[in-house]
């Protein structure tokens, strides 16, 4: 690669991490080409912890109430958190990116593995704020070895992820030592991110077994779209300050001991439990199908006779076995599976032999069963292009599933789609649509890339599609597409998806088994308790830089016999591990109750932030009919016995009703249940009837900062108090 043209440069003294923090954050304005170092205060550590907490705090200080996603002051804030980068415990290399989302027009947080989060900290920074909009494509480099931040003019014509990631690993490392590339990590997006609202951030890691750069994604929310709107082609971090003690933990012995315990558990039990090390998250494919949770044809059905074709054993054979596929050092759960030597069949990379990262469960379902395709090879190719173009595979899958249903209902035709026959299962045309979305020239592909929320408007207003049906079948909430689980048979999961801070992503709570299968949450209060505990517990991962998977995709052998069922679901021993490793790194002495409190602070702060940006009230906690139950007769008939029983349990005799009447009746019942759920959850969370945290809640949590209280006081109404 030719030398890159330097546009701006700034020097700093890299601070080494101590007890998990460097105590410094970096702000880069790519528009003005300015740089600034800020100190991390004790209050910031106490109240916001790190990761997503730091991201939200820094973004709060950077934007106005009126800031839109594409305003220069919007930022992408990247931060790992105090545990990010330890190597003794599995799943400790995550960063969290926080930004105002083009899809939801409020704050979003999205996480990725790979090496960027740890290397950023070891290059001296607890968090990185990127603000401004460049006038030309740039490559931003943070060099922790030299203590310099540089902005280069991008030399790349093709900014797609796989085209530039490897080149940059090579460019910024020792040309005589291929293994030196592990000291570099790169974030990219791609052309798809530029031309749609579904842009993801790709975070790289050097795979020392395969000797290639691989990608993990912060997929959701459109972070890649913001990245490209700022005209960033790539963000590079480099440091040789890389060791198992680079966080300077307070108690390395405990850290090592707790880590070893989990490693042993994984080695002994994973092959009998989830098989993460051999098939990764696609171990869920057949399970979700068995339990009617696998999304098929835009969530119409939860099961399909061809699901065997996407069985985890099929994927297991396609994934390369025998390589430790951890996306950060020390992750023995090693679920970052890859397909090697795959020959691309379509598009600009046709004929190239590549390694494809994934597919993970969400991709196998979203760009598989949900769009009616049961062909793993096609899903692998589509996964490759989604990453390459910088597209979120979840929004892409759910969004295209919506398009296919609209096409099959006759609301859109080949005239609208410019010749594409977008029926479920028509894989060639679906993949062609994705290529067109990345290219950014085709008008229909551009509409699709705006997401379901906006497609509903355009299909209704421009194409004459019936608005009421679009509202029923468009699987989105707060502007973002639902991830890949059918929620219609679990009331608690309605909340797990639609009573969330940022829209229907499954990172807050996954309660389908607890609620529907185990019947452990019989009352609305029980469901509300689960919708308090699990979102707060899981938020904690995002504050400290952890991956959620080693929490409950592996469990101690005696978990289910040592604890009563309700407690066992929390995997208490792993919760204690988290308390122990947090204390071992930071030197603090928190309890498991304080862990929840740390999360609850940030959770409520983010809720107020959404309010400040004009969202964050009850009306944005909307749920489409299809998430509540069947919309069309064939959907009902596919599970007639189950739904008839639901009516009977509600005191309605289904035998006296036509299928259409039954659908209407069940929908009425479920709408009523939804409202009861919302009330119960808001009460439990310490929010008013309109979903606004009360001032008392802010005080209890110690986040009653004057500017936070002012936002609540501006919007809260006395009549909304309980």
């Amino acid at each position, binding site marked *: 690669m030719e030398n890159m043209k330097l546009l701006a440069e700034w020097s700093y003294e890299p601070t080494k991490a101590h007890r998990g923090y460097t105590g410094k954050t970096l702000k880069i304005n790519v528009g003005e080409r300015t740089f600034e170092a800020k100190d991390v205060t004790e209050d910031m550590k106490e109240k916001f912890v790190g990761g997503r907490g730091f991201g939200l705090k820094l973004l709060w200080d950077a934007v106005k109430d009126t800031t839109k996603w594409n305003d220069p002051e919007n930022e992408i804030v990247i931060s790992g958190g105090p545990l990010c980068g330890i190597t003794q415990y599995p799943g400790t290399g995550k960063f969290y990116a926080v930004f105002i989302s083009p899809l939801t027009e409020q704050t979003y947080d999205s996480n990725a593995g790979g090496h960027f989060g740890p290397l950023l900290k070891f290059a001296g920074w607890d968090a990185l704020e990127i603000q401004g909009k460049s006038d030309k494509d740039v490559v931003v480099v943070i060099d922790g070895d030299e203590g310099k931040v540089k902005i280069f003019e991008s030399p790349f014509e093709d900014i797609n992820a796989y085209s530039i990631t490897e080149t940059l690993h090579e460019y910024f490392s020792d040309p005589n030592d291929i293994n030196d590339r592990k000291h570099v990590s790169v974030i990219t997006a791609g052309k798809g991110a530029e031309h749609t609202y579904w842009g993801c951030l790709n975070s790289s890691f050097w795979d020392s077994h395969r000797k290639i750069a691989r990608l993990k994604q912060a997929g959701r929310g459109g972070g890649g779209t913001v990245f490209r709107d700022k005209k960033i082609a790539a963000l590079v971090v480099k440091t040789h300050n890389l060791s198992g003690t680079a966080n300077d933990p307070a108690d390395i012995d405990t850290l090592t001991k707790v880590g070893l315990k989990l490693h042993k558990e994984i080695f002994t039990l994973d092959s*009998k*439990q*989830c098989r993460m090390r051999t098939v990764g*998250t696609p171990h*869920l494919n*057949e*399970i*979700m199908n*068995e*339990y009617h949770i696998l999304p098929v044809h835009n969530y119409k059905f939860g099961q399909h006779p061809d699901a065997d074709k996407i069985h985890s054993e099929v994927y297991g054979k396609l994934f390369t076995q025998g390589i430790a596929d951890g996306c950060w050092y020390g992750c023995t759960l090693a679920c970052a599976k890859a397909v090697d030597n795959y020959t691309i069949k379509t598009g600009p990379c046709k004929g190239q032999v590549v390694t494809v990262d994934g597919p993970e*469960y969400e991709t196998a379902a979203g760009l598989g069963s949900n769009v009616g395709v049961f062909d793993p090879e096609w899903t692998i190719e589509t996964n490759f292009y989604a990453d390459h173009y910088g597209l979120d595979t979840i929004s892409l899958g759910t969004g295209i599933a919506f398009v296919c249903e609209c096409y099959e209902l006759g609301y859109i035709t080949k005239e609208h789609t410019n010749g594409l026959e977008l029926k479920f299962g028509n894989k060639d045309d679906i993949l062609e649509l994705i290529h067109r979305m990345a290219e950014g020239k085709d008008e229909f592909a551009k509409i699709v890339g705006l997401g379901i929320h906006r497609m509903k408007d355009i299909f209704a207003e421009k194409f004459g599609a019936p608005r009421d049906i679009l509202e029923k079948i468009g699987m989105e909430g707060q502007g973002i597409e639902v991830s890949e*689980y059918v929620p219609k048979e679990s009331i608690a999961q309605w909340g797990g998806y639609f009573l969330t801070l940022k829209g229907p992503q*499954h*990172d807050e*709570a*996954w*309660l389908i*088994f*607890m609620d529907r*299968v*185990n019947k*452990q949450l019989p009352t609305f209060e029980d469901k509300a308790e689960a919708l308090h505990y699990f979102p707060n517990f899981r938020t904690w991962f995002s504050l400290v830089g952890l991956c959620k998977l080693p929490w*409950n*995709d592996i*469990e101690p*052998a*005696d*978990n*289910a*016999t*040592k604890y009563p*069922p309700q407690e*066992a*679901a929390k*995997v208490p021993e792993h919760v204690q591990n988290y308390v122990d490793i947090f204390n071992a790194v930071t030197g603090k002495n928190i309890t498991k109750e304080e862990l929840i409190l740390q999360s609850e602070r940030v959770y409520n702060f983010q809720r107020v932030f959404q309010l400040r940006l004009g969202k964050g009230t009850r009306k944005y906690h909307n749920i489409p009919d299809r998430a509540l139950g069947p919309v069309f007769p064939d959907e009902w008939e596919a599970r007639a016995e189950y739904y008839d029983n639901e009516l009977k349990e509600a005191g309605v005799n289904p035998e006296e009703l036509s299928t259409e009447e039954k659908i209407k009746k069940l929908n009425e019942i479920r709408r009523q249940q939804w409202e009861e759920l919302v009330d119960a959850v808001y009460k439990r969370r310490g929010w008013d009837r309109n979903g606004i945290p009360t001032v008392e809640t802010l005080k209890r949590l110690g986040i009653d900062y004057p500017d936070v209280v002012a936002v609540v006081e501006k919007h809260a109404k006395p009549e909304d108090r309980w």
Partner: protein
Amino acid sequence: MEWEVGLTVKDIITRKKYTFPLLAVWINDSPVPRDDFNSTKVPDGAKVQIIHMISGG
């Protein structure tokens, strides 16, 4: 579900088509270790609880 002589925990799981690997089972409020599902007989009239732990998501 009909009880029959020799009914094991594993039989119930198979009949119910529970394919999920992280199951927890209690018979009359006593936990059954996962490795013993095959060999544990279910007494007639026993209270059997089968719980799916959360994973995925």
